């Protein structure tokens, strides 16, 4: 129980996020109106995705250094959960875009960049699927994982700064302070980011433990 305190924190923060996110006072802004509450759900998805993909790439590097089954499984599962967060981020973003910008897909550089990023990780899973042998699959997909991540970084952080974007704080420096959020929104936003990110890590934890157990079971069944 002592090791699991963060799961309790996650649940409490998530409950707080949902309740306060829907009930708290928000600034009345034109166009955005009540959809501003999506900040608590859409933006944290990207934080979660970036963190999970970072974990994935770190474990890919670890796999190339010490090729163990555990490193490979954690790397894959982190990519999978990161992809889930990315898809959720795109869906919440598209809904939001249709309300505020008028279209589901508004040719915004960040929308395009995230779609390309998702394509990259779908390709990663297709690559994994095309190997029969476990060690070769793990090694080569780790190489692609690192390569793709290195190519994704300029995409997500540099390109939107070079062109104008519909996203807030773009066409220049998308720094966080430029979000026009008042202190009441911050009270919900920061816990929301922590909550969703922790939830991602939790899912990753459960999924990779499950996969490792499954592999162990197969090994014993064959032995």
């Amino acid at each position, binding site marked *: 129980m002592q090791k699991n305190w963060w799961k309790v924190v996650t649940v409490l923060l998530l409950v707080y996020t949902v309740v306060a996110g829907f009930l708290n006072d928000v600034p009345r802004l034109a166009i955005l109106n009540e959809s501003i509450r999506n900040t608590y759900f859409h933006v944290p998805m990207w934080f979660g995705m970036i963190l999970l993909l970072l974990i994935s790439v770190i474990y890919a590097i670890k796999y190339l250094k010490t090729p163990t089954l555990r490193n490979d499984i954690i790397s894959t599962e982190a990519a999978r959960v990161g992809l889930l967060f990315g898809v959720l981020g795109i869906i919440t973003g598209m809904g939001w875009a249709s309300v505020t910008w008028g279209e589901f897909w508004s040719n915004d550089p960040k929308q395009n960049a995230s779609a*390309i990023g998702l394509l990259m990780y779908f390709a990663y899973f297709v690559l994994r699927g095309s190997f029969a042998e476990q060690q070769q699959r793990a090694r080569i997909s780790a190489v692609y994982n690192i390569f793709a991540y290195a190519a994704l970084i300029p995409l997500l952080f540099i*390109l939107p700064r070079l062109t104008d974007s519909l996203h807030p704080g773009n066409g220049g420096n998308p720094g966080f302070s430029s979000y026009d959020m008042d202190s009441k929104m911050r009270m919900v936003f920061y816990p929301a980011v922590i909550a969703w990110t922790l939830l991602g890590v939790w899912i990753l934890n459960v999924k990779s433990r499950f996969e490792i157990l499954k592999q162990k079971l197969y090994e014993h069944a064959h032995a």
Partner: protein
Amino acid sequence: MVNTRRPADTFLFITILNICVVTLRQNIKVLLREVLYLMQKDFVLEWRQKYAFNGMLLYVGSTVFICYLSFGLRGGTLGVPVWNALFWIILLFTSVNAIAKSFMQENKGRLLYLYTLVSPQGVILAKIAYNTCLMLVLALLCYLFYAVVIGNPVQDEGMFLATILLGAVGFSTSLTMISGIAAKASNSSTLMAILSFPVIIPMLLMLMKMSKNAIDGLERAASTDELTTLLAINAIVITVSYILFPYLWRN
């Protein structure tokens, strides 16, 4: 636009520093000799099997001609954005097809033989350099043919040729590594396409913007942002390929 150039510049500086550190750890002279020998080998092989190169030329020619016919044009009636997009898409597919074979055509025995002789870094750098030369020739011929058949609205030729040069380098750096990855898998030609497109799209967007500026004859300073970002992406891709290829190579 003043503050937008800073992140790209810092980025470029860091990656170049990175490359210097990585390369200095190796014995550069030995590496350079290896790269030159391997490139020579590739050129000789290409010369002996001319059908592969001729095939690519025919591929470029037919694609351009198909585009010409399917748009039903007579010289120069294509709008500038369409002209630009079509040109880069033709070049993209040509390069994917041309570079895809760079590791697939090597047979197992020769790879094993190379494995005992040279370092993996030498192999990847030589392949990148060779593919760059190949792409440069193909891209220039493609531009020539495209301009003759469909018409040439380019106003700043020098800048456009510089963009083609950057494009050839960029495509070959990123596609060489991808072809190394795809060659290990079973359905490699499909994989080559799906693995490379997401990696190459940011590069393609920058190139299209640069070449659009060149076509419109804008002042060259307008393309500085794209230029530095492209150089930075190239630098990252080369460094990452250099570091990762040894893991791909050993089997």
